[in-house]
Structure formats: C-alpha cells, structure tokens
C-alpha cells in the first residue's frame, strides 16, 4: 500500500464514523469508535439490521452497491478501517 492510499483511508475514517453514529443511532461519538475494533460481536456490537443501514449509507454517499456473494464481505465489515479501505478503493462518487 502506498502512503497516499493510507492517507485517503485515514481521511475517510472520521467521515464514515460520523455516518455510522448517525445512521445507527449509536451510543458512541464518532471519535470514540476505535477504527481497528471489530464492528460486530463483542466490538461495536452491530447486527445484521445495521449492515443494511451501512449498505444504504455507502450506496448513497459513495455510490457502492454491496452484495452477499462478495467473498470480501467479512473483510469489508471487519473494522471501521477495513470498511473505509473498501470505500476508498471502490467508490464511484
């Protein structure tokens, strides 16, 4: 990965964190979300309902349509940083 690529991801993190907090009505503030913490299970504790909300945010704001048969899904939703990496690499707007 190039340095500029990592910078792009770092720049996306606060923006996507704010989107998640708003869309999912989370207890945390955007700054409180650890970008490397798991989004599901014992991390942020998101569920499948949240995934649909995230998919909507991602499609509207970044022009990306998620699919279940994408083998990368587990990787995409592993953490906030992974989600931002996916957005940075695939966004159409």
């Amino acid at each position, binding site marked *: 990965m190039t340095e500029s690529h990592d910078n792009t991801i770092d720049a996306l993190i606060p923006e996507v964190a704010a989107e998640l907090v708003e*869309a999912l*009505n*989370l*207890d*945390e*503030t955007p700054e*409180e979300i650890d970008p490397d913490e798991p989004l599901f299970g*014992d991390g942020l*504790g998101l*569920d*499948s*309902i949240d*995934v*649909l909300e995230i*998919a*909507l945010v991602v*499609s*509207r704001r970044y022009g990306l*349509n*998620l*699919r*279940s*048969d994408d083998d990368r899904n587990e990787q995409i939703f592993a953490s906030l940083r992974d989600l931002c990496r996916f957005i940075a690499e695939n966004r159409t707007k």
Partner: protein
Amino acid sequence: MSDAMADCIPLVPDGNLDRVLLLDGENHWTVADVLASAQELQQALDALPTPVRHLVNLAGRRDQFLVGLVAGILGAQVSLMPSTRGRGAIQDLLADHPDTVILHDNDAPLEPTLAACGPHLAIPPLRRAKSQGECVSQVPRIPTSQLIARVFTSGTTGKPKGHDKHWGRLVANARVAADALTAHQRITSKAQRGPLDGIHLLGTVPSQHMYGFESLILAALCGGATLSVDQPFFPGDIAASLAELPSPRMLVTTPYHLHHLLASECALPPCEHILCATAPLELTLATHAEQTLGGVLQEIYGSTETGQIAVRQPTQGADWQLMEGIHLEAKAGGVVIASGGHIEHPVCLGDCLERVDERHFRLIGRLANQVNIAGKRSSIEYLNATLRAIDGVKDGFFFRPRSTNAEGRQPERLAAVVCGPGLSAESIRRALRERLDPVFLPRPLLLVEQMPVNATGKVTRDALDALVTDSNDSDLQQRDAS
C-alpha cells in the same frame, strides 16, 4: 378411501411428484427430489443411537430448510422454530426437548457455540430422485392431526412460549392465504395444483419465522408456488435474485427490507406481486413500491400464534379483510380475540383493532407492552425478565425512549436502564445477545447505581426517559462504563 385416510392430506395438493418446487438458478427441483433427499436425511436420523423426536432446523437456504422440514414430517419429528439462534436460546430449547437434533446447512459447519449445545447433523444436499419411483413412488399423505412445528414467541415470563402447528391447520392456513392473495385474479383451472401455481417466490425473511414459514415454505408446498432457494440480504442481492426468476414473480418481504430496496435505487425487474408483513407499511412506501416494481402490493396481517388472518392492498384502502373462517371478537379493555378457521386456539391479539364489519377491521396500533423492531416482535415484559435473569443484575428496565432522533429513522431501538453493581455495559450486552435477537439489544444501555423511583417507590417511564436525555447532554465518556 378408508376413514383413516380421510383424515390425511397429501404433502402437496395435487399429489404430483414432478411439480417443480424449488428454483436454484438453472436447476429445477421437483417434489420427488425433495422427498428423496428428505428420506436420505430421515435414514440418517434413524441411524442415531437414540430416538429423535424434535428437530431444530437452522438451515439458511430454502432447499435445505424444506428438506429438513419434510424429513421431520416423514419421521413424525416436530420442527422446533426458535425466534433467535443465540446460544442461550438454543440451549434452553434443548433442555426442554432433550430428544432433539440440530439440523444445519451442508455448505458450512455449524457455529462451534451451537455445535456444543447438542447433537447436530448437516442436511444432505438436494439430489435427483432416481427415475420412476425407485425410492419415491408417491406423495405421502400426512395425518391432519400430526404436530409439524412448534414456533416460539417471547412469552411474558422470560421464557419463550411454543405454539403448536398441526398439519391440517397449516394446510388450511396456506390455502386460505393463497386464495386471499389471488382473489382478484383467480384462475379456476389451476385451483387443483394450488392457487399460487405458476408464481415464482423470492423471500427476504427467514424460513423459521412464522411469516417466512407460511408465505414461502408452505406457499410452495401447499399453495402450489415455486420457490427460489435464495434468501437475499443486500438490495443488490434482491435485485439479482429477482432478475434470475421467471415471471410472474412474488417478492415476500417486510417494510424494513422494502424501504432499503427502494432507497438503494438498484435497477429492479418488474415484480407482479409484492407481499409485505411483520409491521405496518406506510402508504407512501406501498405506492412507491407498486410504481417502481410495477406490481400489486398486498399486506398480510397475522401473528405466530394465529398464523395469517387478514389481507389488504394498502393503495386500494386501509381496511383489512379477514381470511375465510376467521372471526374477531372485541372484549372489554380493547382486547380482540381471533378464532376460527385455521387458528389452533382462540388468541388474544397484540394489536389494537377496530372492527369495521363482520369481515373487515382497521389496525389502530400495537398494545402498549408490545415492541416491533424491523419486523421482529417481543414484549417489554419478556425483555425485562431476560435482563433481570442475568447474573449480577439487581434491576433493569427496557423502554422505548421518547427522545429518539426526529426523522423517525428506522429501526428505533429500545433503551435500557440497568442496576448491576460490578457489571459493565458490554458484559450485559453479551449476556443479552445469547438469548435475544440482536435487534432488541438496547441502545443506549445506561448503568445506574440506583433505579430512579417516585414517591410511591415506582420506576416510571418519565424518570427513565429523563435519565437518557440527561446522559445525552452530559459527557459521553461517562455514559458507557465498559
């Protein structure tokens, strides 16, 4: 026909082994194929050292679920259908039904936490029935009194409550629902094969929940429809699965999924029928769906306890029409009892209804203690009992916060206030996740040293609400102790 036979109904209405039941892309699977695979599973169950009387069918794929269900029907084993697959919920179920085997999809191992709960078997993949009746010569006839499934809902005591479903009532349920859905375009010549003959179903709801069980599994088995094996999740998946199905199509979904599908602006093929249930659908969404998909949107009213009992097309009118044989009776205090037809026992409905006439009613809203989040139902009593059963929790309350954000963003989560000295919010969430569907996990979860009580020693909704509002205003760092 002997007397004993008169009390039996065949597994599929026309007894036709060659009818296509399932579609998996280019693959068409017939009644005979499903029966052959179900027999294979039944033999595997038979070979187990102790007799099996119950199955917990956790299959995600429709074909796998159907094979598990039919195997159970052939072997007179009852399919237990829990409302969540949390480890605690499954453990409780197995403790109450010790002669149970867990069934799961064959393309992935069962999660280790569930595999540790008890005996489990992978459902065999569908295979072609050998030609001309080597193993399947005819469609079996099933006694109407046979117990097929026990479907669980939240009780009020902290323990899920099972609702027994017998074959005769299930078939009647599927038939009257299919009749109600096709009333505007009935083709009598097809009636023998089932009113939904020729319709291709795609569902976004699980097979194990009553709505999916009735509108997908039973609609295919008893209603004559052909079912896609997919259970698409993302809007892009739904669009792709729909496009793969031949016309006419029926999308079986919820207001929640429909909202996301339309909001995603995915390109969608025409869909002649849209079926919606589990939560009231807004008229604007119904109108939008009919315009976008070019079909008729029908809404089903029902519950796990009653099965499906009424239907309406929201764009044509707000009133619900009761299905054949169903009666409503208004009791004191706004309680409405549903009975008759395929309903197993008279049931007190969880909603506030207003009767318009003998056959029609209007839905006013849900009763105060009922919750519905993204189409999943529970009651405040049940959630509270589950919360208070956690080790270390002294007291706790779930409630619907008033101060949720203004746009009515869905789904609105519940809040909880908990007094549990030494416990962290995270440990409480983890314990709740074992027994509750994740949609019911509280957001926010506030830890307090003492419950706010009023002058008479009671905890009031206003006091709980004030806590949430106060904590929103205070330093967020202090809110979540975990």
